[in-house]
Structure formats: C-alpha cells, structure tokens
C-alpha cells in the first residue's frame, strides 16, 4: 500500500520541506498516523485533540471531498490525500 499525502504549503516546514509524503494505511486516520510517526510536528498542525482534526483542516481523497467523518474513510493503493486549510481572510 502506498498513499501520497499532499501537504499544505503552510505546513511543509513540518515535513522537512516535503510537499508530498508517501505513507501506508487503510484509512485516512491510519495514513495520518503514519505521517505523524515520521513527522511528529504534524500532529499539532492537524489535530485539535486525539481523533479530532482542527476545524480549519480539510481532507480530500483524489481531489474529492470526504467530509464528514473523513478520518474513517477507506483509502487504497495509489490514492492521493490532499490536506488543505480553511481560509477566512478577505
């Protein structure tokens, strides 16, 4: 299993500058856990608390919304997970 996670521009400093990270996992949650194993700083960047994403974090699989309950969504080999951040400025 190889899943690509696309890191938001503002968070690449948490992944040693990597914009795309390959991970393993059967669900979004497992993939994010794997990401955090390699880059522990991402935990604070993504999660408000254990199992709960920050409200400004959005997850897409293969460029499609998987909200709500995105952490439990299944992924398969070759899938691409995009992490993007909600914007509010005008």
């Amino acid at each position, binding site marked *: 299993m190889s899943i690509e996670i696309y890191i938001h*521009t*503002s968070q690449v400093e948490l992944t040693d500058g990597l914009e795309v990270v390959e991970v393993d996992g059967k669900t979004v949650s497992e993939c994010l856990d794997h990401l955090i194993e390699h880059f522990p700083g991402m935990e604070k960047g993504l999660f408000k608390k254990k199992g709960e*994403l920050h*409200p*400004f*974090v*959005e997850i*897409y699989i293969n*460029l*499609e*919304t998987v*909200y*709500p309950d995105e952490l439990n969504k299944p992924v398969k080999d070759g899938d691409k997970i*995009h992490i*993007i*951040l*909600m*914007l*509010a*400025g*005008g």
Partner: protein
Amino acid sequence: MLTRGEHERYNRQIIIKEIGEEGQERLKSAKVLIAGVGGLGSPVAINLAAAGVGVIRLVDHDRVDLSNLNRQVLHWNEDIGRKKVDSALEKLRKLNPDIKIKAIGETIDDSNVSQIVDDSDLIVDAMDNLAARYLLNKCAIEKNIPFFHGAVRGFEGRVMTVIPGETACLRCMYRGPVPAEIFPVIGVAPAVIGAIQATEVIKFIVGSGYLLTNRLLVYDGLKLKFTEFKLKKNPDCDL
C-alpha cells in the same frame, strides 16, 4: 435598452458572443450585493462596476486604515479614516457614472442581515471573517440568492459558487468555529480571487460558461497553481 453611450462603453464585451447585447442588458438589470469592501471587495467592485452591473450595493462597517492599503485598491492614502463604503463609492462613481451604487456602512449581524440582503439578485462574499461569511451564506440559502464565496491568506486563495438548494454551500463544509486572526496577505492574492469571483458573477448574470458549483478552486500563488476539489452537498448540513 442600452443607450448609445452604454453601447460604446461596453462595446469590447458586447462583441464577446457569450455576452452580446442581451447579456449586457442583463448586467444592466442586475442588483449585486458586495459584502466587504476590502482586499476582495475592491477588485470585485471595480470589475463589476466596469462591466456595467446596474445596481451595486456595498456593505462594510470599517474605516480605511494605513495597513489596508497594501491590498484594498479602492482605498488610497487620502482616504485614511474615511468609511470604506464612502471611499469605494466615490471611486466607483468616477469609474462608471451610469450605474447605481449604494453604500451601507453597517456591520452585518443577525439583526440586519435579512434587510441588507433583501432585493439583491446575487451576494458576493468578500468578508474578512468566518462568522459573517456563515451568516451571509445562511441568509442566501434561506432567500434563494446565489452566493459567490472567496477567501484569501498569504499568497493563497479559494473560490466557490453556491446555488441555493442545488449545490454545496459553506455550511456543508462547516467543521466548527475557527479562531479569528490578523491574517497575513499580499494584494495580489485578493486581486486574483476577487477577479475570479467577479467572473463567476458575470457568467451567472449573462448565463454563459460553467460555474464553480460543487467545485472548490484553490489558488496557490507561491506555486502559481490552481487545484480544483470536487464538493457535494452534505446530507448533514443544517441549512
């Protein structure tokens, strides 16, 4: 009917086959509310006024501050301290004296949002905070008014268009309250996003092209890259 002067003013867009004289007349008849006359609202208002949208209502409670001038291109140094809606109205009237522009210098809240939105055909969300955006989105859905969302931060921006009852709305994506911040931004980001919002408004009014409905367009100015994400109505959305 377009006047001779309007024919001349809008000639370069009337000769676009997707607009034509009929599209120009539709633009002239349209009433658009622009909520927020800052970084996003400036390019939206300039482009819609220039394109000949017949009635533009500007809403903003704020006054022009020196720190606004890196991005809010309707406001100039001489406007510091003035109400943004007055500053904007003056410039837009000089740009296009043929259209009607109304300035509403109020804070949008629960008590007045319905009245402010009333009698508008379209709402452009150019606000600078999520609370007001959700309030406007809710009012747009309740009153069945198309809603054109844009937001920016840093070099980044996002745009989506909401057709009430048919397509995903802001609330469909709601994940809980997000703390307000003094957001970093450079003027080119709202310039890009505001121009796209205005493009969507014009397309909707003239009935041409494909709208950004059920699509979230994300712009990364640092990579100069647009990415499109597919959205769908959230069955749990409370609107």
